[in-house]
């Protein structure tokens, strides 16, 4: 017998914990994208959510846990016009306890030899989220932001 459709699925909170390393991040993202609340978003909003979450989680893997392995916890809570997201890890703090500026250094006319091969991540996070906030608390990094619907 098939279970009855869960009519509350679209307002469910999702909480996932996984290893912060590239393959586990890819698997964790795939699991998140297939579950409410992300599975219920429009294609465009799902794409945006996947980009932002991938950037945030890969930053944790590459920087917070640069010196050794660890886990990352993601909580997604549907709010009126989007999703509130909280990402917590126990890695090293952000430099100067603040978020990188994420300024783009290239645009039309930049010579090919000067093109950056990185540094896009925080720019993407900043332009695709609202209420971006970082705190270092009790040995944890706590990054919170809102993914707006139709953003």
């Amino acid at each position, binding site marked *: 017998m098939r279970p009855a459709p869960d009519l509350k699925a679209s307002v469910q909170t999702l909480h996932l914990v996984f290893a912060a390393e590239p393959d586990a991040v890819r698997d964790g993202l795939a699991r998140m994208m297939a579950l409410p609340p992300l599975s219920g978003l429009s294609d465009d909003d799902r794409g945006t959510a996947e980009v932002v979450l991938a950037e945030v989680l890969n930053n944790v893997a590459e920087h917070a846990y640069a010196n050794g392995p660890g886990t990352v916890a993601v909580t997604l809570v549907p709010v009126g016009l989007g999703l509130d997201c909280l990402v917590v890890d126990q890695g090293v703090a952000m430099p100067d306890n603040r978020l990188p500026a994420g300024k783009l250094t290239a645009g*039309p006319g930049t010579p090919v030899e000067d093109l950056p091969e990185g540094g896009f*991540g925080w720019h993407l996070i900043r332009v*695709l989220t609202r209420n971006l906030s970082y705190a270092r608390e009790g040995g944890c990094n706590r990054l919170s932001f809102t993914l707006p619907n139709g953003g």
Partner: protein
Amino acid sequence: MQLQTQTRPRLLSVLVMEDRIDAASAIQFKERMRDLTQTADGRVVLDLARVMFLDSSGLGAIVAVKKLLAPDRVLELSSLTPTVEKVFRLTRMDTIFTIHPSHEVAVSHAASA
């Protein structure tokens, strides 16, 4: 990282057979592209029709391939899916690459150039 190539005079087409180029696959993508482009000459058109997701690591790898080919050869792109197009646009990399709407357009453009 599965890449399918097709060689025409002065044009190498590379179709990415994966649905994502991300932090877990970016280095492998860059190395495979370097190997594939070593033996051919002319333009390289990277067909991203099957790539549904690209993160900043994947974008950085595509930029790195463009830099590897410069100054004698160019890397052009075709068939960006919506999320990939968004990443290129928001990072202004859409102003750095020639981006063709389809692989067919990319090939005919190259042939007439």
